């Protein structure tokens, strides 16, 4: 149930970290090779960090030819994050990956704040991908969506199997002295602890909107087992670690142990029992013993 957030781990340079995950999610793969954005690309803030990496990558051809064979040998399920500048590009990449037996799932990056997106809606992109692959499709949405619940329902209707929530939010940091932007491209994607309540709300809203019918990978500032438990309670079926991996490459196994302890502390045997608990009808702490179950409000 513990994945990495796309772009926060390179399994080629740190395979030992990737092996601690239940699935490894690749950096977003685009059609053509990309250098990424000019430096400086990262800046720390008081409660997280900003990045403007800009999706550097080898492009789908090199990824399939050179990276995939190595990633397949990791021994953990492989998810590939897919990006594009049009629905056609997303579809083309998904079609290529559909042929790859080593790819367990596809996550559509519909929400990178550092790269110009496709003109089509998220649902249109999902539909284009659905048409060419039978692999599980996860739509990675941004909490900046004006109506996240509607977006979740739209991508579900278009054929998405699951949701990945959330991507970074656009943020800005200025230099102490010069008061000029600290990143080469000025605004960047904000991640880390400061993002956590926003991400938790997104998971909560989408779980409620979809009635718990879609698997949700929750991410955004998760640093501990307690955080992971909260995302599951809000509706996530799995969690992904992002910024915490930079400071703590041992986070996957640590969070896994902490999560197990949290579940036990709550008297839960399995993670699935925790899913959606935040949506349960409120239970008075001193529940009147006399009230029969049938009297509970709907």
């Amino acid at each position, binding site marked *: 149930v513990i994945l990495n957030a796309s*772009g*926060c*781990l*390179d399994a*080629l*340079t*740190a395979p030992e*970290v990737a092996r601690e995950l239940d699935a490894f999610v690749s*950096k977003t793969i685009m059609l053509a090779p990309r*250098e*990424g954005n*000019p*430096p*400086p*690309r*990262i*800046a*720390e*803030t*008081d*409660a*997280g*960090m900003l*990045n403007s*990496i800009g999706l*550097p990558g080898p492009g789908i051809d090199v990824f399939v030819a050179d990276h995939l064979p190595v990633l397949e040998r990791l021994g953990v399920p492989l998810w590939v994050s897919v990006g594009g500048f049009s629905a056609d590009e997303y579809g083309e990449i998904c079609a290529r990956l559909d042929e790859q037996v080593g790819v367990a799932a596809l996550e559509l990056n519909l929400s990178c704040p550092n790269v110009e997106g496709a003109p089509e809606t998220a649902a249109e992109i999902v539909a284009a991908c659905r048409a060419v692959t039978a692999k599980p499709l996860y739509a990675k949405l941004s909490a900046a969506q004006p109506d996240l619940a509607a977006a979740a329902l739209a991508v579900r209707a278009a054929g998405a199997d699951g949701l990945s929530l959330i991507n970074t939010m656009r943020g800005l940091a200025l*230099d*102490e*002295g*010069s008061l*000029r932007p*600290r990143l*080469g491209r000025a605004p960047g994607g904000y991640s*880390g*602890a400061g993002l956590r309540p926003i991400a938790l709300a997104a998971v909560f809203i989408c779980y409620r909107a979809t009635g718990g019918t879609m698997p949700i990978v929750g991410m955004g500032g998760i640093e501990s087992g307690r955080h992971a438990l909260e995302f599951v309670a809000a509706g996530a079926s799995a969690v992904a670690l992002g*910024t915490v*991996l*930079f*400071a*703590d*490459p*041992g986070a996957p196994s640590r969070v896994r142990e902490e999560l197990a302890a949290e579940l036990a502390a709550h008297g839960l045997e399995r993670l699935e029992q925790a899913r959606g608990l935040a949506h349960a009808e409120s239970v008075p702490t001193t529940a009147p013993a006399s009230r029969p179950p049938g009297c509970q409000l709907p």
Partner: protein
Amino acid sequence: MARRELLKVVASEAVGPYTLLRVRRGGLRPGVPGQFFMLKTPARPLPRPMSLCLAPPRELAFLIDPVGPGTRALCALAPGDQLSVFGPLGNGFRTDVEHPLLVGGGIGIAPLPYASEVMGRPPAILGFRTTWQAEAAALVPGAEVCVEPALVTDLLPEEPHDLLVCGPEPMLAAVRRLHPEAQLAWEAPMACGYGACYGCAVEIDGRLERLCIKGPVINGREPRGVTLAGDGVSTRRRSRAAGTAAPAGAETPRCSDLENPSRGERR
């Protein structure tokens, strides 16, 4: 193999304007000179890359210039405090050279005391902006020292040497012009130090590469040498406005501070 451990601070000593932070070594290896460690305090979200300055018995020591919130938090640590230390990381200096000469500028001297120790005290030339900073030269036995307006490039000997260099980018660029084969330790803002964040990209041979993986020491003998964007004055120039220090490759203490841009004021 890099490891990450929680280690206790043994001492925090003032060295001119800098702080020599000495921590227990735990199960970590010191690595080779020029390699770096990610140091994280609970006070900040991200660790900071620092090259190893000295490896006293059972200790690791880092020279830190308090230029931003991350480095200030590290300098504020007191004996007994804990911090997370992850390393050694990156590619260090080749020390099996025939006629070694250590060259450092400002806080960029950070990796040279350890290099000096490992290499049997080779000759060294260190440059600083101020005499206060120059107090740090005492960490490198027998070093020749200059203070601006004198520059290290004025002191480089005519005879051929194998240069191991760490300092501000203008200094690295100037040294490279005179000694294209010098081993240069560069620096870039870095969130992870192990290739995960892609934050430390610099232009090497016309391509953006992660400095934590390709560096921080880059051998001038590489096919076409290092071409940081803007020819020697990297695109990271803003972040390094203060040159004094040195960016030692990703690691350098100071600058690597993610906040370093502000160093302009120290110029």
